[in-house]
């Protein structure tokens, strides 16, 4: 084991996969000598050259399209989108091309590509640089969506994503890039489609992912002191969801709290709540509760920015409320 940061974990994964398979290439804005806006690709251009670490102009749509065409042809492009908010400019290529090509061609082509999306707020970058848009992606059959919450998952999921034969939307959280954690010295993958029970518990299932996992773990420690024994599920993959892990947990605890940073209405929390309401209904001792981002754009002001997403205290309070029901 060794301790590295989330961004180092991503970089290691990319570097290892590029070494293993010459078909893996990187594309994105300022990912070369600049090292990427969040330093994920730092120095990779020195190691792999400009032909494999490709600095692109500001042309998000064409980058997504170009990656799609390259992937159809046998390469495995990993695209960095500088901020996830700019994926709005790639939607046509991702949704109408990459996601549908395998189906429309009856399997004649496949599109093995990864699109990296730095998500979330907490850096004061305001409404157009702080969104969490994973729910859109989960509504598109043909895509896979993952969201690691720590360096171990970041590395393992990235390696799995690069090897997957489908377009994988790889969500990262800006506030996690400097988070440290242990990863094995030897090679490993984290399988796409498998959630992880981060903490076992008996009274309440907290279902979450991404940066919120860290907050939920903190809240769980505080709740423990108060005698509430929480189980925490880190989804890791949002599409396809690991239904079994979620449903089994809720069947055991009888209570579910879903936590995410994305705006509540239409968020992926709704899908999870709906699943539980459908498949674990007789086991529920209380209503399924969602704690999510407020239904507003992300404000610049720091206090307000903090107020729009669930914080540790909010999670604790919500869990306590749910335990009383």
């Amino acid at each position, binding site marked *: 084991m060794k301790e590295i940061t989330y961004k180092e974990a991503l970089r290691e994964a990319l570097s290892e996969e590029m070494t293993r398979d010459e078909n893996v290439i990187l594309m994105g804005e300022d990912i070369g000598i600049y090292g990427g806006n969040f330093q994920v690709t730092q120095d990779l251009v020195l190691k792999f050259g400009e032909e494999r670490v490709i600095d692109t102009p500001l042309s998000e749509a064409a980058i997504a399209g170009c*990656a799609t065409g390259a992937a159809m042809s046998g390469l495995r492009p990993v695209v960095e989108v500088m901020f996830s908010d700019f994926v709005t400019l790639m939607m046509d290529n991702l949704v109408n091309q990459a996601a549908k090509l395998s189906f429309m061609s*009856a399997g004649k082509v496949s599109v093995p590509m990864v699109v990296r999306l730095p998500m979330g707020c907490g850096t004061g970058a305001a409404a157009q640089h702080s969104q969490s848009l994973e729910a859109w992606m989960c509504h598109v059959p043909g895509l896979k969506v993952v969201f690691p919450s720590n360096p171990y998952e970041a590395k393992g999921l990235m390696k799995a994503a690069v090897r997957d034969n489908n377009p994988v939307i790889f969500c990262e959280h800006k506030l996690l890039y400097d988070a440290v954690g242990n990863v094995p010295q030897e090679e490993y993958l984290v399988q796409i489609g498998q959630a992880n029970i981060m903490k076992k518990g008996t009274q309440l299932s907290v279902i979450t992912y991404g940066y919120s996992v860290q907050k939920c773990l903190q809240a769980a420690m505080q709740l423990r002191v108060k005698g509430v024994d929480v189980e925490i599920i880190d989804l890791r993959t949002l599409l396809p969801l690991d239904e079994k892990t979620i449903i089994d947990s809720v069947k055991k605890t009888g209570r579910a709290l879903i936590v995410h940073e994305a705006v509540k209405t239409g968020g992926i929390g709704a899908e999870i709540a709906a699943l539980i309401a459908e498949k674990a209904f007789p086991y529920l001792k209380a209503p399924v509760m969602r704690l999510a981002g407020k239904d507003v754009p992300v404000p610049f002001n720091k206090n307000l920015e903090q107020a729009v997403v669930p914080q540790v205290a909010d999670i604790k309070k919500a869990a306590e409320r749910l335990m009383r029901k």
Partner: protein
Amino acid sequence: MSLTNEKTINMYTKMITARLMEEMIGQLFAGGILYGTTHLGIGQEASAIAACMALQEGDKITLTHRNHLGCIGIGMELKYIMAEMFGKETGVCSGLGGSMHLLDPDKGNLGGNGIVGGGLGIATGAALKMKYKRENNVVLCFLGDGATNEGLFHEAMNLASIWKLPVVFYVENNGYAVSMPTERSMNIHDIAKRAESYGMRSIILDGNNAVDVYNLTFSAVQYVREGNGPMLIESKTYRISGHSKNDTEQRYRDAHEIEQWNAKCPIKRLEEYMLKNNVATKEMLKKINAQVTEELKEAILFSQNSLEPAVEDLQRYVYAK
């Protein structure tokens, strides 16, 4: 490679195949036999088919919503195209794709596209791979005049240019994007001019003259193949068909205009050329027409006798293994 007699006859055969196929598809839709929608290419046979014939083994094309001609041009088989039009399991895309999504990578076709401009990114990416792998191939990216107003056109042209990718952007300027005349959708006379924004070379050709289309496309493709970076070709042509099967009224153009272009029919012109240059005799042309008619009949029979895809298989191709 210069246009040999054999190749010319082959080209003519494909053009006739395309014409008869499109007419047949039109009738099948009119008769309520085919389902969905379709965009016929009548009048653009030389533009699409002769261009494809300028390619060689390993080259690729990307096509548009109006993609049937390109499919014939690149050598896909009539019966698998028709079976796809019928939505049958034996179709090129097992009935899942339909008229706008004909795709056959083994033949070099990276796909028709229901999204106008959708092929631009794909073509650029396919060319990126060719360059990366040091392959001696090119991509021929078909698009319409209308598509050149999409943002993706600009972005893809620029990428191809700065990265010197082996791709030829082949703009079929057929005068309209649905009802919008090209002269109203842009303030320039020649779309080829747009290449200059990217420091890219371009040529303009008469898209209704198959021999010209072939020769000029061939030279452009060679230039690109040699590693000189991308090129843009503007093929000036005209769509005789309505925009789609729903475009019946056509209030946006008058019959006189269509007549004028009918007089420039690319097939008639190629026939004249072949006769004049002793490439073929009248009898040979007649025989080709008869053969193609027969083949088309068989293709339809094949399609009609094919099975529908199974509902149980719906999930099968959503994700690649």
